């Protein structure tokens, strides 16, 4: 590789190289700096933070801000609900996507075309927020945990990702199982599921991140039920209480003070919400890169 670098001898090529490397470094800095800044503030003494000037390392190191978090009573509840919906939602999402994808990959299945079109249409047409809200109300799902899980069980995009993966598997595997007397469910369970693991890992990641990151359903459907709050929703409430927003939301200065938590504590909560994702995604990289490419080709 070093040789190749040396061989690109023209001045314009070397300038080009310099530009490319500088650009990549720039991308690294603007992507990482904000996260490091948030981490530094979360580890810095909250009164000292007010002085400003913190960059990417704490000036007065402390873990107090993280201890403070425990005094936010809703945060524990939010954590439990977020973790629970992520777990249940991901398991159900993977099962539904893989089952549907398998039936759609079977060329001898009569309903194949109908189900494909039926699913694909949902990617382009939606009833909109208000009809959806009223449906949820009709189904008595307001102020329930189920509203986090039920509406999102089937995702057309995920089904198509898994289907294009199954289409790439040799059909002979299914044929031979059939001859051995296996029924369609056994084939799905014993042969398809184990072989589609990479695709399933991809959509599991998509679904899990979606669940972990969502806050709007809590805001819209469950904001009256404190025991059903989620982590992102709590973070949203804490972060949105910045100066400019409080100006019109709070009626007097006392209320403002009650609502604003120290900057350092806010950043500590941000870190707690973000860290689980940071630990997981690099390990699944090769799966989701493949999954994204497959999904894009098919849909």
């Amino acid at each position: 590789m070093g040789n190749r670098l040396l061989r690109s001898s023209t001045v314009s090529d070397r300038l080009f190289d310099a530009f490319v490397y500088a650009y990549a470094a720039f991308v690294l800095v603007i992507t990482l700096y904000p996260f490091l800044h948030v981490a530094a503030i979360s580890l810095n003494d909250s009164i000292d933070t007010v002085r400003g000037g913190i960059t990417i390392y704490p000036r007065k190191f402390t873990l107090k801000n993280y201890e403070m978090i425990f005094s936010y009573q809703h945060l524990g509840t939010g954590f439990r609900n977020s973790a629970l919906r992520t777990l249940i939602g991901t398991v159900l999402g993977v099962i539904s996507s893989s089952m549907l994808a398998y039936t759609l990959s079977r060329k001898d299945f009569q309903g194949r075309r109908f189900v494909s079109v039926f699913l694909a249409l949902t990617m382009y047409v939606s009833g909109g927020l208000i009809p959806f809200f009223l449906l949820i109300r009709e189904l008595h799902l307001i102020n329930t945990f189920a509203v986090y899980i039920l509406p999102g069980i089937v995702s057309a995009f995920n089904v198509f990702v898994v289907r294009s993966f199954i289409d790439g598997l040799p059909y002979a595997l299914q044929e031979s199982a059939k001859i051995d007397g296996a029924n369609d469910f056994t084939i799905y369970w014993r042969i398809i599921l184990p072989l589609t693991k990479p695709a399933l890992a991809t959509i599991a990641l998509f679904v899990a991140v979606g669940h972990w990151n969502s806050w709007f359903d809590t805001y819209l459907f469950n904001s009256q039920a404190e025991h059903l709050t989620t982590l992102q929703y709590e973070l949203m409430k804490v972060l949105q209480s910045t100066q400019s927003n409080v100006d019109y939301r709070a009626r007097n200065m006392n209320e403002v003070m009650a609502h604003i938590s120290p900057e350092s504590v806010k950043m500590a909560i941000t870190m707690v919400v973000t860290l689980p994702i940071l630990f997981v995604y690099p390990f699944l990289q090769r799966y989701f890169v493949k999954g994204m490419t497959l999904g894009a080709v098919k849909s």
Partner: protein
Amino acid sequence: MEAATWTEKKTMTRKERTGRFFRNAVRSRWLYAMSLPFVVWVFIFHYLPLWGWTMAFQRYRPGRPFFEQEWVGLEHFRALFRDELFYQVLRNTLAMSVMGLVAGFVVPIFFALMLNEIRLMFYKRFVQTVSYLPHFVSWVVVAGIVTKMLSTDGGPVNELLVGLGILDEPYPFMAKGKLFWIIVTLADVWKETGWNAIIYLAAISGIGPELYEAARVDGANRIQQMWHITLPGIRTTIIVLLIMSIGHLISIGFEKQFLLGNNLVREYSQVLDLYALNYGLGMGRFSFGTAINIFNSVVSVILLLAANGIFKRVTKESIM
């Protein structure tokens, strides 16, 4: 085989055909069992809301049976088109979606091209892994980070600009309506560039190395190779993705606007979905809000069909 069964079908009587259908259905009972429950699911949560569109033509009152609702025709649409706020909201939606579309296309393609030119593999892989990071972080967190970075007390951007002497005092970026569209677009670029580049990088890796060899023999330098080989090599991918995003042009969502906006920039931050949320749901005007949703969906579908039509002309292929 397909052709054989087809001619067979043609000569069968109706009775034979139904019999065959049921025999087939019994044989694939497991396939039905594995798909039908989810089809019902999709019907309930994706198709039933479409029935709710009837509300836009009624003076909808909750709790009343469907047949006792009062029908008012297009009254809510007329009210919508008379509302001055609607045009402001439509302007914001279109402005932010067009800016998002352009930036969301140009920047990831540029990023993919640049990344492809890095020869140090570990550096390339590291930059790429880091570039995915913001995609996995929620908009709540990203909005918090953007607000923090641009804040007037101790925000790094202001400290940098003041430190360099470009500004005399911190500038209230988040309080300026005129900057809101740009901030939203840049936040989106920051969050999604690495992710959106995945597909382009995959397409680039599919270009045959012999093309580059040939170009090098002809004396093409690196920029020329990028311009004449890499870029044309991912042309189809670019077109397909472009047309798909045109279909979603107007339905840009509202998370960013909801989380980054505040009362000071409201004239520039309100988009169609937020308008439906605040003036429809928030005020209990379900019919009016539904009319907004319908307008949004219908425009999306028209844009998609138009884009698909143009695409068909250009490449003789359909994406739908």
